[in-house]
């Protein structure tokens, strides 16, 4: 939707903001309520990038809201700083800096730990504002007398005051805020943030520095919070200490969930509903303090039954009425005709990127004396393993032979207890998955690790971006379409794994075989020079197996591959050489024929009953 009309959303937002003062009074919105909705909406834009897009639920945004607000208010009321807008910007920067520091601590953990830590941090800020810093912040009195801004363009001078007079100023800032946020979520960084929400482990495995990106999202959210905090002071002509309370963070979370997370506009809608209902329940129905009870119940019901909030609900309704989803919802293709597969095979292989100087021939991967111990269990012991450039190697072994552990060490998911692994002449022992992927070594997983809410194309884009942009880059305003080679790389990969006709289908609607191909495609999109495939045929029907073997043959040109699989017929057909592991050691190595005829291998598999 965004793609066809790049600026449509912006245009509609502008129209809406201009029309609001003419329409909302008829809906019994007080001007001050509208202004507060804008401030909460702006606060929520950043929070939505953090929570809705990146999947990090923070209950501590009040810390940053308060920081930005008090820095700006202090400058304007105590330090005699005259420029309101500049003070707001300084407050925003201060909040961003604080956000960076807080993020360093809170992002050490994920999930519920992250939520708990953010709560605790916010509480610290609250107490610090009240006590140690009360000399500057006014403690429980806050900072009164925050001025409203004036613009002076020489020929035109205007002083914003309160109510509808202040509205254009807030609306303008909200507009800038939403335009910037839209750019961010459409940028490569935005795509990666969504990938982190969907599957952080895979996002890291295809070569993105997810910690850096999470911290980026946290700082962005902090900046929005800081600016909104400053505006709160301007709006009320007073910076209230309540900005720092847990209630502030909670209200933000609830408004975002009510409006719809991951939409940028959700917080604005949520705030409008919240503040309108608050006025309505309190004033019109005379419910007094019970308004919050009603809102709390509404919130709980929404979380239970309307997971994507009001905007999500409206989207579903729209689809339901106009059957827009019909085309997408068609039954997934169960199997792809063999003819279609040959298209994939005919596609030109992707150029393999050489990020490290590789010797033209000779081993691309060398493991020397690699062992892995888990507590008392020796999973791998003293494995020597060499793979030549351009080879297609198979690894087999009975259950418990240590194949998976060995693969994990090669991709640096686990560190060997002893031994050394070299990739393209470089020691990679002890590196992390992200860096190794950036060097050109990656893996497709035994159990699909996809970004399930994204489309096939968007999935491949995540892989390709890591290849083309490196592991961390802050191109927050870049249009991905302008990244040279990105489109080609995605198209090539789509062709290779034969998913061109499904490019814009969300992963959740793919058939299992298609997902398995995408799993391989995701690894391929990073244009690895060494590709590891962990049971690529797992869970496939015989028909799909035949097709996937064909596919694997077609993608191998110019690439080194190592395959683990239990389907021996398929593996022997594919691999040029096969390594057999048994009880954590290399039993033997040879051509498929040699392996088939090797008595030691038979013994390993059959336990010698035949003799």
């Amino acid at each position, binding site marked *: 939707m965004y793609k066809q009309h790049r600026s449509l959303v912006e245009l509609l937002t502008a129209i809406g903001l201009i029309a609001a003062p003419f329409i909302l009074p008829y809906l019994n919105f007080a001007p001050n309520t509208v202004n507060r909705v804008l401030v909460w909406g702006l606060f929520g834009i950043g929070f939505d990038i953090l929570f809705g897009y990146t999947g990090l639920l923070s209950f501590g945004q009040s810390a940053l809201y308060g920081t930005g607000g008090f820095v700006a208010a202090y400058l304007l009321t105590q330090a005699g700083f005259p420029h309101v807008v500049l003070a707001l910007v300084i407050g925003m920067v201060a909040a961003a800096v604080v956000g960076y520091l807080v993020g360093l601590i809170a992002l050490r953990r994920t999930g519920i730990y992250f939520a708990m830590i953010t709560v605790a941090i916010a509480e610290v800020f609250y107490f610090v504002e009240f006590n140690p810093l009360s000399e500057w912040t006014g403690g429980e009195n806050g900072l009164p007398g925050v001025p409203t801004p004036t613009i002076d363009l020489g020929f035109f001078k205007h002083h914003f005051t309160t109510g509808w007079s202040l509205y254009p100023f807030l609306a303008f800032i909200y507009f800038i805020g939403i335009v910037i946020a839209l750019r961010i979520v459409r940028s490569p960084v935005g795509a990666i943030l969504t990938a982190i929400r969907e599957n952080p482990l895979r996002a890291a495995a295809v070569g993105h520095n997810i910690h850096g990106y999470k911290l980026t999202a946290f700082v962005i959210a902090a900046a929005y919070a800081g600016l909104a905090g400053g505006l709160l002071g301007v709006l009320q002509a007073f910076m209230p200490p309540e900005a720092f309370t847990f209630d502030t963070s909670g209200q933000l979370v609830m408004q975002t969930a009510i409006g719809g997370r991951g939409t940028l506009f959700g917080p604005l809608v949520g705030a409008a509903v919240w503040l309108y209902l608050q006025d309505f329940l309190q004033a019109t129905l005379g419910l007094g303090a019970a308004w919050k009870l009603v809102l709390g119940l509404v919130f709980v019901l929404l979380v239970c039954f309307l997971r994507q909030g009001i905007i999500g609900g409206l989207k579903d309704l729209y689809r339901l009425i106009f059957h827009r989803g019909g085309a997408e919802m068609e039954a997934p293709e169960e199997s792809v005709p063999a003819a279609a597969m040959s298209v994939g095979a005919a596609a030109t292989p992707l150029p393999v990127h050489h990020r490290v100087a590789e010797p033209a021939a000779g081993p691309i991967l060398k493991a020397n004396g690699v062992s892995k111990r888990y507590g008392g269990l020796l999973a791998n012991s003293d494995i020597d393993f060499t793979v030549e450039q351009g080879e297609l190697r198979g690894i087999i072994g009975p259950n418990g032979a240590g194949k998976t552990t060995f693969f994990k060490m090669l991709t640096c998911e686990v560190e060997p207890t002893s031994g050394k692994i070299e990739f393209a002449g470089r020691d990679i022992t002890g590196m992390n998955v992200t860096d190794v992927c950036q060097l050109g070594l990656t893996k497709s997983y035994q159990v699909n690790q996809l970004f399930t809410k994204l489309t096939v194309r968007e999935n491949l884009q995540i892989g390709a971006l890591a290849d083309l942009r490196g592991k961390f880059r802050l191109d927050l305003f870049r249009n991905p379409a302008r990244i040279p080679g990105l489109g080609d790389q995605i198209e090539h990969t789509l062709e290779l794994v034969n998913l061109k006709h499904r490019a814009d289908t969300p992963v959740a609607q793919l058939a299992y075989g298609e997902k398995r191909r995408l799993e391989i495609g995701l690894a391929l999109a990073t244009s690895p020079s060494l590709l590891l495939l962990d049971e690529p045929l797992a*869970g496939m029907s015989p028909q799909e197996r035949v097709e996937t073997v064909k596919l694997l043959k077609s993608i191998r040109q110019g690439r080194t591959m190592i395959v683990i699989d239990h389907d021996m017929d398929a593996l022997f057909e594919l691999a040029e050489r096969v390594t057999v592991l048994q009880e954590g050691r290399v039993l033997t190595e040879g051509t498929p024929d040699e392996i088939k005829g090797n008595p030691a291998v038979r013994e390993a598999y059959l336990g010698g009953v035949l003799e």
Partner: protein
Amino acid sequence: MSLLEVQGLNSYYGDSHILFDVGMRVEKNEVVALLGRNGAGKSTTLKSLMGVVTPRTGKVVFNGSNIAGRKSHSIAQAGMQLVHEERRIFGSLNVEENLVLAGHTAPKRWPLDRIWQMFPRLKERRTSRGTDLSGGEQQMLAIARALIRDPKIVLLDEPFEGLAPVIVHDLMKACRDLAAAGQTIVIVEQNLAAVLALAQRVYVLNNGHVAHEGPAAELKANPDILHRYLGV
């Protein structure tokens, strides 16, 4: 009527189709082995019977009633026990507590003495915590934990895997004694020699399908099947 009769069982992990129309039957007092390469679906079959994996379609008639789709605890109460491949001993509980917990909801249970008689080693270690047991002791405990519930059928998933030969020998003896006492057993095991010594009948699974069914003795005489579905 057979004690256990499985028809048209289809199981999935997520949307990965693992079992295709698996059918099998187990008579009372019988020992049946499931063979096949890694990834053939043997463990998944046992898990589907026990309700750890819920089969998507198919019938599992156990002791006269269809248990497909029921929760594990209700299947356990109907008299089935699965000894998991990973053993799943409660590390924070000691040996005796592991056993008492297991027997808690059993309608009829073995007295502890009968367990101690079968596994004297466990009696010696009755107050040791699960985490402090050796691999062999853990496996004994895992089996004992199933037996204390006096199950109508025991499903053993690779009980000898990763154990020292001496321990395998002991466990084998225990299994043989059990079978001799009339315990119905379904066993999945890579160690063919051990399986063929125990089982009367075998099912061979290949890529989630039942590829062969027959008496164990026949398999020994017919190495072709072994090569085709188990070997290299």
